[in-house]
């Protein structure tokens, strides 16, 4: 019995030892696979690769690995400068048609060589003073445009204009069903599309899909759908697809019958809500038919995909990260010319219409061999534009842009910074860092960032750099972080107000004087308390610290007191309008609408581009107000503060990207801040003079609280005014404090104080203690 027990223990030991060793070693083995990969596999696994994969689409065999072959993006250039591209289509003979407008004239271009060269097929007048709601190109080359054409029929708001292949123009009023909409204008056509048989369909304000009798203009319901409301629709061959947040139901355009559901297509809209959010006349996704019967090719902010009828997944043909497709997510049309050529019409970061060709190149690697890692805490259109430009010029480099706070997953700034720091400590320092919102000083101290002096000298020599801004970032003989652009801090109102705004105290005094004179009038622009503190912080925060970094307590206390005085002038509630950055595009907060319509006396905040100054100067002319810089004019707010990793292995690529970000093609565009690059500055001035100069016919309008409308002509960019902006930019010498910790602490305590939840002593004591702790750390 005893012997049996001993044998049992021995057997148990023998059996357990390998299990124990396995369990012991398993975590180690698993951990070796937990390290960060080079990322290339991730990309190649989603990269379709090309024609072979197109043929295999639906099987889930993505290809990739060390494979060769990729679609390469290139811009197509139309023969004439156009204001708007209505649409694009492929004809039965394989050529491609583009319908565009120069303002008064509609132009139809044709290309028989995949968009390399274009001929103007016809020009049609009557498109001046028009409001186009939708356009489409039929397989026979007929162009259909629906909208309001004052030059054709001043009364008709739903006109269908058809431009036949020979250039003949016919116009017919669309006869739409009545609408439940409360719009006084009644029903309207929202979107047009042709099917492969040349039948024209549209969506109206009832969200119904209607088939159009192009001869009579009579529109009849094409499909019977009672499910989730569609945002828009698309047609691929003879298949009509409805984009709903529930899925993508399909119908035959021939008889309107419902087609079987396709899970792979449903997943597109179910997993990415942005694809069903149609916000303008562009679409979040465009579809067309593929080369195989029943196949669908579609483009959205993720890239271009191929879906084969009956397939369980869609195959990615073009990765948006390797193209310009993901920059704005606003598309108009897509055409698959053959297995190796796809055209997509979309809106680029400069808000211009663009057509790109994606041509399959079988000789280049499916995924670029080099990788450039860029990190930004927040989304930025300007950065996306730079990535897109750089990617186009450097097809051998894969640019991986990581945005810490996408706004889609609830990640806070702190979470994002922690994740970034973990990567940095693991040795994965991004090659280029956009430092807005990041602890710049710490990164400089720790030697994470390289000295940019040599690189900035190169840009200075080639394009010129604004020296007053550059001097502000010289530190210990080097420069480790430098902004691509900057915002100016303005005050607009009576001349006395602008003069009084030499200090925050003077500004508040003047506001109080006005309050006494005009007890029933709003003094400042409408602002929620947080926005007010934010704007005032941009104006005053440069004064809060000594040169050695010590806190100037009296300056901070004065800020709180003056902020409270300014808040008390009007006392806007928490839910009052504020201005927030929109989709990565900074928005100037010095709005002037209220000054124009007399609902406020003074406006203040930032100007981020020339358009902001167009409004400022127009306001000055219309209302007799004065526009000036806050304080002594030296404060500016840096934007796109950029650094290069000191340990980057792709230094040349990182520097090349830096030059692109600071270059004339990216810097100085509307909504990108005022450029530090002087060549970009000159280009911005020229663009402003041309677009918003005295000859400009562009106007802007808005509604007043009493229901009337107001507006101004955007023609104020005279030489004199441009020189004024230039003079303002030359004064900018002192950056506003952009330390996110300080900003958050001041906003937190400032809010409590201005709303009356704490006294100035309490707020200041709390701020003093918290900032001291922060500085002591």
């Amino acid at each position, binding site marked *: 019995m005893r012997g049996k027990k*001993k044998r049992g223990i021995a057997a148990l*030991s023998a059996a357990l030892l390998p299990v*124990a060793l396995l369990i*012991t070693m398993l975590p180690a083995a698993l951990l070796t696979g937990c390290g960060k990969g080079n990322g290339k596999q991730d990309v190649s696994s989603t990269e379709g690769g090309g024609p072979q994969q197109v043929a295999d689409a639906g099987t889930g065999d993505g290809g990739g690995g060390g494979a060769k072959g990729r679609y390469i993006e290139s811009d197509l250039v139309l023969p004439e400068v156009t204001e708007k591209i209505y649409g694009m289509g492929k004809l039965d003979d394989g050529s491609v048609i583009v319908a565009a407008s120069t303002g008064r004239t509609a132009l139809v271009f044709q290309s028989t060589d995949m968009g390399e060269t274009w001929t103007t097929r016809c020009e049609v007048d009557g498109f001046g003073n028009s409001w186009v709601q939708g356009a489409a190109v039929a397989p026979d080359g007929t162009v259909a445009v629906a909208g309001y054409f004052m030059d054709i029929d001043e009364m008709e708001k739903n006109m269908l204009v058809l431009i036949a292949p020979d250039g003949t123009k016919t116009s017919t009023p669309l006869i739409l069903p009545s609408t439940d909409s409360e719009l006084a204008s009644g029903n309207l056509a929202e979107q047009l599309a042709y099917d492969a048989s040349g039948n024209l369909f549209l969506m109206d304000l009832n969200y119904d899909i209607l088939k159009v009798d192009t001869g009579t203009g009579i529109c009849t319901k094409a499909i019977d759908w009672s499910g989730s409301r569609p945002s828009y629709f698309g047609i691929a061959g003879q298949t009509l697809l409805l984009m709903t947040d529930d899925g993508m139901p399909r119908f035959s355009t021939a008889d309107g019958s419902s087609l079987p559901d396709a899970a792979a297509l449903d997943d597109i809209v179910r997993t990415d809500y942005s694809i069903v959010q149609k916000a303008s006349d562009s679409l979040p996704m465009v579809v067309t038919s593929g080369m195989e019967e029943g196949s669908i090719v579609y483009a959205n902010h993720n890239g271009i995909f191929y879906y084969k009828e009956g397939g369980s997944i869609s195959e990615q043909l073009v990765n948006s990260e390797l193209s310009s497709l993901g920059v704005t997510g606003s598309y108009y049309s897509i055409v698959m010319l053959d297995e190796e050529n796809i055209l997509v019409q979309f809106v680029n970061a400069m808000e211009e219409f663009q057509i790109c060709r994606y041509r399959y190149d079988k000789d280049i690697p499916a995924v670029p061999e080099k990788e450039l890692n860029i990190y930004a805490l927040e989304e930025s259109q300007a950065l996306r534009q730079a990535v897109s430009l750089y990617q186009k010029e450097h097809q051998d480099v894969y640019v991986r842009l990581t945005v810490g706070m996408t706004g889609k997953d609830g990640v806070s700034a702190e979470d994002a910074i922690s994740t970034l720091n973990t990567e940095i400590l693991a040795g994965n320092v991004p090659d280029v860092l956009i430092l807005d919102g990041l602890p710049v000083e710490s990164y400089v101290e720790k030697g994470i960032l390289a000295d940019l002096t040599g690189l900035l000298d190169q840009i200075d020599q080639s394009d010129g750099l604004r020296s007053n801004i550059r001097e502000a970032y010289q530190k210990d003989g080097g420069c480790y972080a430098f902004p691509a652009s900057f915002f100016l801090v303005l005050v607009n109102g009576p001349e006395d107000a602008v003069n009084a705004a030499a200090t925050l105290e003077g500004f508040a005094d003047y506001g109080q004087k006005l309050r006494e004179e005009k007890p029933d009038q709003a003094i400042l622009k409408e602002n929620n308390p947080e926005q007010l503190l934010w704007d005032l912080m941009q104006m005053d925060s440069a004064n809060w610290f000594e040169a050695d970094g010590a806190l100037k307590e009296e300056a901070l206390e004065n800020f709180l007191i003056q902020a409270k005085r300014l808040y008390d002038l009007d006392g806007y509630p928490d839910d009052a309008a504020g201005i927030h950055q929109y989709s990565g595009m900074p928005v100037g907060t010095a709005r002037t609408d209220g000054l124009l319509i007399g609902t406020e006396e003074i406006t203040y905040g930032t100007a981020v581009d020339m358009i902001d100054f167009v409004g400022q100067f127009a306001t000055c002319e219309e209302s007799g107000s004065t526009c000036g810089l806050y304080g002594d004019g030296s404060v500016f707010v840096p934007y796109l503060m950029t650094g290069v990793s000191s340990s980057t292995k792709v230094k040349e690529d990182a520097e090349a990207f830096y030059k692109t970000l600071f270059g004339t093609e990216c810097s100085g565009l509307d909504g990108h801040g005022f450029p530090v690059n002087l060549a970009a500055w000159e280009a911005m001035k020229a663009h402003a003079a041309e677009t918003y100069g005295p000859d400009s016919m562009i106007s802007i309008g808005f509604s007043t609280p009493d229901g009337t409308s107001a507006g101004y002509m955007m023609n104020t960019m005279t030489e004199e005014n441009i020189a004024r902006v230039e003079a303002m930019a030359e004064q900018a010498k002192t950056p506003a404090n952009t330390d996110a910790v300080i900003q958050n602490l001041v906003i937190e305590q400032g809010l409590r104080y201005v709303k009356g*939840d704490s006294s100035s002593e*309490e707020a200041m004591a709390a701020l003093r203690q918290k900032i001291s*702790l922060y500085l002591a750390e």
Partner: protein
Amino acid sequence: MRRKKRMAGWCFVLPGFAGVLLFYLIPFLDVVRRSFYNAVGKQFCGLANYRTVFENAAFRLAAGNTAKFLAVCLPLLLLLSFAVALLLQRAGRLAPLIKSACMVPLAVPAASVVLIWKLVFDGHGLLNGLLERVGLPWGSDWMNTGAAFGVLVFSYIWKNLGYDVVLWLAGLASVPETLYEAAKMDGAGSLARFIFITLPYIRPISFTIIVISLLNSFKVFREAWLVAGNYPEESIYLLQHLFNNWFRDLAMDKMAAGAVMLSAVILALVAALKRSWDK
């Protein structure tokens, strides 16, 4: 035979030990190494990081607050939970119900606790409402005053009391009833039985309870951080706040030195406790 038995023992210990080795000991050794290097770990700097941390005012404040918190909370929790356990021993049929009630705070997620804190201790919160009703001075934003420390202590006790009570009850249950009966027959009173039977018998488990309570006290940071962020009222600025902020600033050098010192202090505390227990 003994060797084989020992082998079987190792087989059971090895998986757990491997986890501890991989996820605690080896990373900790790396932390010790980093404490002698500069922030990005490239340059050896000797004891400079330790000097910097010692001279750091924020560290001194956080270490002081943490020590003060431990000094107040640990005895309070141990005494309170022991008293409740003793009462529960005599609670009869109600004992299981009270025991369950004591455990409820452990099941409440930290985020919910924080919400309750905010509702109660805000300037316009329930506590001030109550004070106003009974005519007492009110209006303080409790979490932004020195009272925040009291709130933190209360939260720690409230959350951990039930757990400690259960541990004490387990210890008390291990005392043989026959000893009490024999002592009673010998004429020993309640106090004598408590001092000469109960206390010696629960001595071994009390060591475990103290160590567990000590380690649990560091978890109170979650609530403190959720309610007051990275820079709370000075009295509840703990070492974990500081480490969190140092990580944001990538101050790995200071963090490593601070962590080594903290570990050394905890280790010394536990060792001293063990030694005094073993005597």
